[in-house]
């Protein structure tokens, strides 16, 4: 059972600021959704390998070569706030 405090903790991990109303909605909906998914727990999967990749591909590498950098004007073109060559953010703490 997911509690409102769990939702608050998860929201902080996910960097989402939720209103009280949202917290209540998500608490209810996450419980509904995960409750509906409980059927999974009935399946016996002790000896089943988890599948992280559907492909049977291994060892995909690139050679250690330097290629074209993004032109400076493009690097910061989409930036909401900048200071000359850098991205600018509010204070860290």
């Amino acid at each position, binding site marked *: 059972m997911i509690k409102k405090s769990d939702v608050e903790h998860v929201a902080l*991990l*996910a960097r989402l600021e*939720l209103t009280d109303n949202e917290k209540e909605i998500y608490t209810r909906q996450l419980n509904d*959704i995960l409750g509906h*998914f409980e059927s*999974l727990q009935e399946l016996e999967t002790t000896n*089943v390998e988890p599948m992280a990749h559907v*492909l049977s591909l291994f060892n995909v590498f690139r050679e250690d070569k330097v290629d074209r950098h993004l032109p400076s004007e493009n690097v910061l073109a989409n930036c909401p706030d900048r200071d000359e060559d850098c*991205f600018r953010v*509010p204070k860290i703490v």
Partner: protein
Amino acid sequence: MSLYYLTAHELHDLLLKKEISAVEVNEAVFDRIESVEDSVKAYLTLTRDQAMKTAQEVDDMIGAGRPVPPLAGIPIAIKDNICTEGVRTTAASKIIYNFIPPYDATVVKKLAGQHIAMTGKTNLDEFAMGSSTENSGFFATHNPWDRECVPGGSSGGSAAAVAAGESVCAIGSDTGGSIRQPAAFCGVVGIKPTYGAVSRYGLIAFASSLDQIGPFTRDVTDCALMLNAICGHDPLDSTSSPYEVPDFRRCLVNDVKGLKIGVPREYMSEGIDADVRQIIEKAMSLLELNGARIEETSLPHLGFSLPVYYLIAPAEASSNLARYDGVRYGFRSAGAQDVVDMFMKTRSQGFGAEVKRRIMLGTYVLSAGYYDAYYLKALKVRTLIKEDFNNAFEKFDILLSPTTPSPAFRFGEKTGDPLKMYLSDVFTIAVNLAGIPGLSVPCGFVNGLPVGLQLMGRPFSEGKLLQAAYTFEQCTDHHRKHPEL
């Protein structure tokens, strides 16, 4: 017949015969957009100047007697979660409402190499999370067959554009059915290729282990042409398969004699509309009549695909969407106290409700104490689902099902209950979990709304799916019908 309702291969023939010019084709399509876009709302951005410029170049090439590729000058729309250099790409999210990529997605590069005329960027559910395009951060797209109905999603804009004559073909992406379901709802052909067949480089990630790019077309022949253009290994995508891409035109053969088709009973029993069932059974008889051998089969774990999908996809999404924080691009909330505050405000104001819900769900299932019970469990059951398909493909060349249990639903019908909306993906998501190709081809109408037939095959058997769909198409005329707008 209006130019904007011709197929790419028909237009190509006319272009080569110089009966029409690429500029005329594009003018026809943009005129069509002008007249119907207000009621369809398929596009987020139009790139008319760019399209006309390419069209002129193609006309010049043809005029100079130079050979042109099959899609040269053809008006094609791109889903707005695929990066286009210099053209705003938003994933239909306010959080990157103003993002102009400095690079092209690999598929966009490949299509540019074919000299296609890009018409614009199409609407979608925000970050491709949804099944109706109602979750777009900007506006909803309407189903051209019935404006009160949704076009499906998440690639609703692409499907609607092709159906409404607002483009000849379109590119979409499919994570749990986002190409096939809207293709079915809008009465066009859509294919989700094998995972790894098409490069994902430049596709704004939703769930990386499930996402795949694919085309929408008006017939199976165009589908083959589009696959020819976009498939192939890409060194920029580690999960792209280094396989030899066949010429899919060779698969356009009217013959299914001896083709072994399995129909998983799980697809035909669960909550499927009686009308849809009838249409699918008719399609089965038609294929049988043409020599296919159809048998019932079973995918025992299919019923678990919905929970598996809705654990894996949100988990990956919660991480993929972490980068939208207001530092490097897109929206930033003003007046934050510090950087954490800025992150929280930006993300809360920038993301829509469904995206936040999935980020919450995904973050929860990955968090300490729940990983094994949810995420790891889902990965294990994914293995079982894949094994079911492997077993079925030992006996059958193709599996067949309806693409969706019912035709397009009405606006607002499922927005109140996320679970109800998730259930509309129930027939398409297993294909993504198994990484196999799935194609939806129009197979009839229920109350004026199109119904799709889903064909599924072994990895990299797109050719076989095309052949079966082509054969089916040859003895039906659903693909020649167009909505009244």
